């Protein structure tokens, strides 16, 4: 493990995000933005007129399936590599909440005082406790729920039994829209927090090169 880490480290940079993760991330980011935009278009035809409802549905479906396929790049990579450790939850609740509050304190107070982040980014421990909880919920709950409800609405007749089990088309759509609302909030905050690195560009560069500058 140390060997790999050493191989993927430069003198002042650490290799945090391997290529499959970076490919997945940017396809996912672009996909989410397109899904949000086409979702807004097809939900608010009366307010926006960038494209027709029909075109918005078509594009939404294509991008949706691309994002679903892309999800499996992420899932496959982490399931078949030891990097899955980054998603291992902290089972010691006391330790988790202590570090989580430290991180919250940092973002809401310490960062303004010029303090260092309490979490040190490492290849096998790259997420701070706030990121850990958020990404686990997003990737393992919100995104799959969005995929499933989206697929159901893509062809309601084909999945009518499942739609019925969930309580009907209106219920499925309401869940889908609630997740969409959550993602709108997530993307805005996520993009902002991405700029809270050593320099505003640090984390963005890291998502392109894979290497994070060390403090």
């Amino acid at each position, binding site marked *: 493990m140390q060997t790999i880490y050493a191989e993927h480290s430069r003198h002042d940079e650490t290799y945090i995000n391997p290529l499959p993760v970076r490919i997945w991330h940017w396809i996912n980011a672009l996909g989410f933005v397109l899904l949000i935009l086409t979702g807004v278009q097809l939900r608010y035809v009366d307010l926006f007129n960038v494209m027709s*409802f029909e075109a918005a549905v078509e594009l939404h479906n294509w991008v949706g399936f691309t994002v679903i396929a892309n999800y499996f790049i992420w899932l496959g990579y982490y399931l078949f590599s030891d990097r899955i450790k980054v998603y291992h939850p902290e089972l010691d609740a006391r330790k988790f909440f202590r570090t989580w509050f430290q991180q919250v304190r940092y973002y809401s107070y310490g960062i*303004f005082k010029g303090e260092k982040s309490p979490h040190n980014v490492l290849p096998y421990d790259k997420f701070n406790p706030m990121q850990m909880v958020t990404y686990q919920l997003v990737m393992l709950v919100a995104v799959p729920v969005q995929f499933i409800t989206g697929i159901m609405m893509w*062809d309601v007749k084909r999945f009518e039994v499942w739609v019925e089990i969930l309580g009907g*088309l209106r219920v499925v759509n309401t869940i889908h829209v609630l997740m969409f609302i959550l993602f*709108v909030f997530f*993307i805005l905050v996520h993009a902002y927090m991405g700029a809270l690195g050593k320099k505003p560009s640090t984390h963005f560069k890291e998502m392109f090169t894979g290497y994070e500058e060390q403090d």
Partner: protein
Amino acid sequence: MTIRSRMGGTRRDTRGVIRASAALLISLVIPGVLLLASPAEAGTASEPGVKSDIKCLKCHSKNRKKTLEDGEELSLHVAKAEYANSVHGEIGCTACHQAIANKKHPSRDPISSRRELSVALNQSCRSCHAENYQQYEGSIHARLVADGNHAAPVCTDCHSAHRVESMEVYQPVTGLPCKNCHENIFDAYAQSVHGGARVNGNVIRPSHIQAPICADCHQAHEVTAVAASDHLTSTCLDCHEEASLAHNEWLPNAGLHLDVVSCAACHAPLAERRVNLELYDNIAQLPVGQHESHAAFEKRLDAIDEANDGLDPVELWKLVRESSQAGQATDITLRGRMEVSSGVDAHRLAVKTSAVRNCDSCHQKGSDAFQNVTVSITRADGRSLRYEADAEILSSIVSVDSVSNFYAPGGTRIKLLDVLLVLSLIGGLAIPIGHITMGRIVKARKKEGEQ
């Protein structure tokens, strides 16, 4: 009689008389025999085919009348030639008027009304036309008759009593009995792509088969209430076999659209549309109203909609909940369907190129299609009882459960979710802006402190 007297007055020239009589006999009797043998085919018969009928017509060819109990005078006249030319001309009067054969006639038994007589005599059609009669018995027409509706047709209202004609007579546009009662609908049909094609020799396009007339879609005898089922969609698809595939090519969720949007809602582009929410029992797999009296339902509805101003979302939710509790082992839901507002509109079918194809016409807030909402129960006879409802029902969060199976993205979007989206947007922007502002304030204070 005339022949006899002539013969009696010309004994002096017997040969001439015999010759003249033979010629007359040949010229009158032989064609008469031929005509009586096949009156319908010949189309010029003046005498019925059954001997006993001549006896009946002795009286009934006169303008006699019978006073009915309701004061109306019933004409007993039967036009001999019309009857002889009818398809029944050869079966004999007593084939239908069976009771007359079994008792003294004319009877002095009172007849309460013309309608009662027609309804009673309707039974006689069954003996020869059992299959058609059985179909008729299951029809909305027969159910209305049973309910005492005097406008509802019995067999003779469509086929007439004594000049029953061959089925082919009903094929031309002008010969339909349906329009006697459904004139407005027939007029709309006549203007439609189907009616127009029918009038103009069935030509819609060279490869097209015969354009439909009323009975082709609604059945001749097994006429069902339109609301009784969504069978009309499948009826359309019976002829327009390629329609499902054609819709699949461009329409997202084509199967769902075909289920919840009536064909006329798009193919009668000038029609006024509405959404009907039918109360349906998922466990019994029957529309509500078929196992519960509509009077009991109306009573419950009145109790819920006290102001009698149409159901609002909360009242609808209560109605669904209470309907579920009222019966035993029921699971009541609402089955939503977009349809046209009237039977007249349903028949204004236009050519394919004029059909509504613009998704925005439904899938946007404020669409006309979602401004008229009704909630209905379906009686056992297939007729719908509709109640007005607020259009807000389709966009209320309260309806997520009660109207769980009807949703059109954009068109029936839930208002509360719009509010949440705005809040999420505000929150998503407020956090960065607040954080940046906080950082600047802290930085400024730090600078001030250093100075």
